[in-house]
């Protein structure tokens, strides 16, 4: 279903950006005029479109199909200061066997943890096929110097992370310093290259809740793709609002248009705030109708979530046995501490 590892970048991001922008030197002015030349987003129209997609009625066979697909797209996440190896191992066990009453249940795509938990997760997941994603680059704020961010990234990669979820410098972005954001992403992408030449896939977290406007989300999406991100991701989960449907819609339009321009596909990951099966199905409808069915694949679309998995499992059980079971009929490996 998905390719095991991303190939090393064939061209360096700056050279390709110069090519795409048609400039001899990549300056902030060149990036600005390119990003600000993208068509604007009308907020009312965008939100109306998302709401319209949210009214699609997904029933019976398509619902069953969608639930299994959504499960397989989850980056099962724990990003707490209180995380321990035991908590991470529990979550890995959940990923390997999401529903002990039905072993045909698909596994989530990945476990998403802080960098120091990568070895624990790797070991616990073994050969299950579930990947390990690590947040890096001074997650969630990104307020650290570049050497720190790169060391953070290299550390996770060398510990075996399959995927790196980095954060952009929202301060730089909002102050119009697109070149800094570009360079950071491009350098982190280089830091994702392993010693054997393969590389971890890079998800670029834009923290759309801090970018606020849809125009900013669109520009940040294009900037992230231009700089070499394999995925564009909405949020850290630490800022509200996190993954909304309209924001995800804008990002799906961006990856669709990016493919038209370059022929390359980039993944999309809404993260934070998606808790119910009903919501997940709305996102899948949006993926299908905006970007197209090519993105309906865990390689190209992910949900950053924790409680979503159990709601999907409850719905899955209901579709199998025809009645709702209850919260105690799905296992919970990340109950609240409080």
């Amino acid at each position, binding site marked *: 279903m998905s390719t095991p590892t991303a190939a090393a970048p064939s061209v360096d991001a700056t050279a390709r950006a110069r090519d795409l922008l048609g400039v001899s030197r990549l300056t902030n002015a060149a990036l600005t005029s390119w990003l600000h030349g993208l*068509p604007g*987003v009308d907020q009312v*129209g965008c939100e109306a479109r998302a709401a319209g997609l949210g*009214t699609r009625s997904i029933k019976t066979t*398509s*619902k069953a*199909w*969608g639930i299994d697909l959504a499960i397989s797209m989850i980056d099962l996440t724990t990003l707490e200061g209180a995380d321990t190896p035991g908590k991470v191992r529990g979550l890995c066990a959940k990923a390997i066997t999401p529903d002990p009453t039905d072993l045909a249940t698909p596994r989530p795509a990945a476990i998403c943890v802080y960098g120091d938990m990568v070895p624990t997760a790797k070991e616990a997941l073994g050969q299950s096929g579930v990947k390990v994603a690590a947040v890096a680059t001074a997650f969630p704020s990104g307020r650290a110097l570049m050497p720190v961010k790169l060391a953070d990234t290299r550390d996770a990669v060398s510990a075996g992370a399959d995927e790196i979820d980095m954060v952009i410098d929202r301060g730089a972005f909002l102050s119009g310093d697109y070149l800094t954001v570009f360079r950071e992403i491009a350098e982190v992408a280089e830091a994702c290259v392993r010693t054997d030449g393969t590389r971890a896939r890079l998800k670029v977290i834009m923290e759309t809740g801090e970018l606020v406007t849809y125009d900013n989300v669109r520009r940040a999406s294009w900037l992230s793709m231009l700089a070499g991100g394999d995925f564009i991701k909405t949020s850290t989960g630490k800022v509200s609002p996190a993954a909304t449907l309209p924001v995800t819609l804008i990002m799906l339009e961006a990856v669709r248009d990016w493919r038209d321009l370059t022929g390359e596909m980039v993944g999309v990951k809404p993260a934070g705030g998606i808790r119910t099966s009903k919501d997940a199905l709305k996102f899948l409808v949006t993926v*299908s109708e905006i970007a197209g069915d090519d993105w309906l694949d865990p390689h190209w679309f992910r949900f950053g979530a924790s409680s979503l998995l159990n709601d999907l499992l409850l719905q899955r059980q209901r579709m199998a046995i025809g009645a709702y079971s209850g919260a105690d009929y799905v296992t919970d490996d990340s109950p609240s501490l409080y």
Partner: protein
Amino acid sequence: MAKFEYAPAPESRAVVDIKPSYGLFINGEFTESQGGSAFKTISPATEEVLAEVTSASEADVDRAVAAARRAYNGAWGRMSGADRGKYLFRIARILQERAREFAVLESLDNGKPIKESRDVDVPLAAAHFFYHAGWADKLDYAGLGTNPRPHGVVGQVIPWNFPILMLAWKIAPALATGNTVVIKPAETTPLTALLFAEVVQQADLPPGVVNIITGAGATGQAIVDHPDIDKLAFTGSTGVGKMIARSIAGTRKKATLELGGKAANIVFDDAPLDQAVEGIVNGIFFNQGHVCCAGSRLLVQENIADDVEKRLKRRLETLRVGDPLDKNTDVGAINSKAQLQRIVDLTAAGEAEGAERWDNGCALPSKGFWFRPTVFTGVSQTHRIAQEEIFGPVLSVLTFRTPHEAVAKANNTPYGLSAGIWTEKGSRILWMADQLRAGVVWANTFNKFDPTSPFGGYKESGYGREGGRHGLAAYVTTGDSK
């Protein structure tokens, strides 16, 4: 093709109770016709016969007008505005309570998708009653002039494209201002109006205040010609509108006419393109294009024409055409065989005149009346498909180079009902709105309706306004009473 197939999600028909046959709603009750005949109303999606309805005779019209006159001279005419408002509020609430029933029946009889009847037609119909209920006791302060008072008996003839919504647009202001009503729904879509008769009974409206009679053109003409009608309100084709204007010329009858359109939806190169594409789709494929203010002419700036065309076609491939009762249907059935034939004829003319035809290639049901969402490119002003109202899911794409050229092309039509402007430049929106000879100008949106906003046309799109304070004005006379 698609990986994500949506399973059928039909809205249940069980909520509606369609009688085998219907009489005429006169003086607060259903009565048999005197000398009229019967005709069948069908579901355009399946050609299934839904019910038999009455074609009202001149004698029936006479009875209805007499009932309306009695009510006007009786309890209704003496009632305070505050009390009239209570009836309107009651009707509005009943419409909301029975919303699903109205939505399902509307989709069955008209062919429009349930998501539109459920989310647009019925809620907006209720909103019109709520809005006008509020005006009923405040007419002196509506800025209409001194001493506003009703005309008396109002004759109303409404079209088949938004049956219950057009009924609400007509009845709500008429009652709020103290008139009584004789209304005729279109012959292909009488059922929601007949269901509304039940609402009138449920609301305990005095007998004769609202009379609902069914029939075709002859019945409509009998209403228009009836000597005891004080005011006419018509929504429909420009051809019929002209006939009405001729019929009442030289009489005391007042009239408002809401007629056809050939709206330009104008997209500038600085527009929010993805939302503009949505607006184009909503402008012409909403309600199968059976919309008088439909954005049937897309005027796109030449330097982005190819890009917009590509985005538009990609979007149209995701439109779901089929069973109107399926909650995932975007485009339903064409309302009648006759309308389908008109669309077929005009699109054939478009091809013959050299425009390039494209449709989304979707599968169509084998029974019923259907037409694929269709786009013509390379259209010029001279083509019939750029001049005549098709009233179907057919978009004609034209290009322009400058704002002045866009205005000139947009205005170069005998119609003037609506227009759309897509640009991120606010000053251009204001300048364009000033230049466009259209009753409604939408900026960065399309087909948005609200009871507070007056709606109506320039030129051959008719006269008078509906909705807002302006809409009230058509239902009152002012000044010293003689």
